[in-house]
């Protein structure tokens, strides 16, 4: 990634520290990804993106900024990309998924904050991630207490707009979220200088819907008895979807899905017959957090689905494309986004229904409920998740972990034991 040094310098990055990160990533990626056999050829695109992760897309974004476009950094699947795209803005995900950034976050945050928040704040304050430097504005949301307060800290360093998320799903909460989306549109218009019109918004809705459909096609291929793609590869596609241009993302995912469909026809599988099928549910796995997938897929099992923000919550449910007024479109967006079932809502029984449904659709042998350390809402909801699964006769293993490798061996024992338990 040496060609980008000048760009990183211009972004005001801490080059020395950033170099250390650039050095470890290829080894980690090689061990976890390139060691897999018989991967779909289509994964070549994502391998390439990872090899240039802090170079190629950041360079595109900077080019776009030179042409007057604005970049909005987001942390949550509730923030409607459509509104930004309608104003000719660009959305990029910003969630940190590496232990590398955690100590930086701990300088200002309590230790008992979840690693995702610590890594995200650390990546910004330590100036070691180009995406965090490029974004003209961060868009936060009130999903959890840790994030709410972290946005206040980030706001001292970068412009932040926080969307006030409802925490319940009553009629008035839908109205409130529609209002928040409308307000957000105003903020986006202010920064970009472009008007959000019904025509533009309709176009944007179609772009993001197409991306959702494409991601879903790849997921659907994982329902096959003979798995044409590993969980790790599907996760990588999903993680990078948050950073890529939505049109290109859809194109690449569709290409991959075509190849997977052909593999299913040909009976090509990346796992031996009898490999146990696992559904992962819980907190998101931001790039480059591949830890659990790697442990599971080297313990005689395969991850076939993620009921996570970096998973089904990102692409399930489409936005109604038939609305012709902004009011109708904001309502349509609200209806789609409020269908997401995050543990920040009370009650959140929809998520339990989703998990049971997905467990059947993907024909899973067992579910692993994973919780990022100190995420109290998902941790507490685990009580209902595990009870419901046991009642449905689906084996479940609860795991709490962070970004470090210190518990890798213990996790391996637990996961191997769980796989042995599945028979």
């Amino acid at each position, binding site marked *: 990634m040496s060609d980008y040094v000048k760009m990183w310098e211009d972004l005001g990055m801490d080059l020395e520290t950033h170099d250390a990160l650039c050095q470890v990533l290829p080894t980690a990626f090689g061990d976890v990804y390139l060691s897999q056999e018989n991967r779909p050829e289509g994964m070549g695109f994502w391998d390439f993106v990872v090899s240039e992760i802090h170079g190629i897309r950041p360079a595109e974004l900077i080019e776009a900024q030179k042409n007057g476009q604005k970049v909005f950094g987001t942390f949550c699947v509730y923030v409607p990309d459509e509104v930004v795209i309608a104003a000719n803005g660009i959305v990029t995900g910003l969630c940190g998924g590496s232990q590398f950034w955690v100590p930086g976050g701990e300088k200002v945050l309590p230790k008992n904050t979840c690693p995702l928040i610590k890594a995200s704040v650390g990546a910004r304050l330590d100036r070691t991630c180009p995406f965090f430097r490029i974004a003209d504005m961060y868009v936060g949301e009130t999903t959890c207490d840790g994030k709410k307060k972290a946005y206040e800290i980030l706001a001292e360093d970068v412009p932040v707009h926080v969307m006030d998320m409802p925490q319940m799903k009553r009629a008035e909460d839908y109205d409130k979220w529609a209002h928040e989306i409308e307000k957000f549109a105003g903020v986006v218009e202010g920064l970009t200088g472009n008007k959000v019109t019904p025509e533009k918004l309709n176009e944007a809705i179609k772009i993001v819907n197409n991306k959702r459909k494409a991601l879903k096609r790849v997921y659907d291929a994982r329902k096959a008895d003979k798995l044409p793609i590993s969980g790790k590869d599907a996760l990588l596609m999903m993680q990078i979807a948050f950073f890529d241009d939505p049109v290109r993302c859809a194109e690449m995912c569709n290409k991959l899905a075509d190849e997977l469909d052909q593999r299913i026809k040909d009976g090509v599988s990346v796992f031996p017959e009898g490999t146990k099928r696992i559904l992962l549910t819980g907190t998101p796995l931001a790039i480059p957090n591949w830890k659990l997938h790697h442990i599971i897929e080297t313990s005689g099992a395969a991850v076939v689905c993620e009921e996570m923000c970096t998973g089904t919550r990102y692409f399930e449910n489409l936005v109604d494309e038939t609305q012709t007024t902004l009011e109708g479109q904001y309502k349509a967006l609200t209806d789609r986004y409020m269908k997401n079932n995050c543990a920040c809502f009370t009650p959140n029984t929809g998520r339990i229904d989703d998990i049971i449904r997905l467990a059947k659709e993907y024909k899973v042998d067992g579910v692993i409920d994973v919780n990022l350390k100190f995420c109290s809402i998902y941790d507490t909801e685990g009580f209902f998740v595990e009870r419901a699964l046991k009642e449905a006769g689906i084996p479940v293993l609860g795991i709490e972990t962070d970004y470090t490798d210190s518990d890798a061996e213990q996790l391996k*024992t*637990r996961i191997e*034991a769980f796989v042995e338990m599945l028979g």
Partner: protein
Amino acid sequence: MCFAEAHPGEDTSSGVLALKKEEMYYIGVDIGSTSAKTAVLDENKNILDLFVQPTGWSSVDTAEAIGKKLRDKGFPPEEGRTVSTGYGRVAVPFSDKTVTEITCHAKGASAIFGTDELMVIDIGGQDTKVILIENGFVKDFVMNDKCSAGTGRFLEVMAGTLALRPDELCTLAASGGNTSISSLCTVFAESEVISLIGKGEKKENIAFGVVDSIVRKVAVQATRMLSPEKSVVLTGGLCECDYICDALGKELKTEVKTDPRARYAGAIGAAILAM
């Protein structure tokens, strides 16, 4: 299942006599964090030999020492079948297969206690496991493997502070009372014990507090899986201490059984899985 004639011990040589030359034998090696347990069974699941040794600092060296001991005893691993388990399971060069300690403990406990319906509490050196067994198979399990609270290591450290051996501490605890150690962290609990010593608290009362802390921590884990139709058994290094069994039984409001062979549950299970 014929377990009656077996006597666990440091060195049993009767196994050699019990085995006819052409008979197959099965070896289970359980390399735990503190001690390494080995079991040799014949094809009828009769115990031919059981032995234990400290794991020491190298699982590889320990595994080699076990291999040598097995050869000396007339059970060369090359001629039998071996399953290894425990955290050092991958370090056993003569192992035919590795299986996790959860599955092995379940198999071993079912064999030792002669039932396929039970809940196993295993207090190990560095972790505590609760395993629910249904029809002889693992149905569910929980593990505390991130914190030393409620583990054998916790007891060892406290025993060291009180200048006692772990088994002495357990025995002494039975005659103590009215003291509680509130810190779950071993390091902080040690400071607590030191300040109790400083205050002149009786040794048996401190021992009581230490055991009580372990029992309460383990019971919280176990309560989630408790069911009236399952017997509760204790395995692992602390199973030889009657007082821990009694105290656990009191906390869980049910009888907690154990057996002298229960510390070999993982190794016995591994040997059965080698069949």
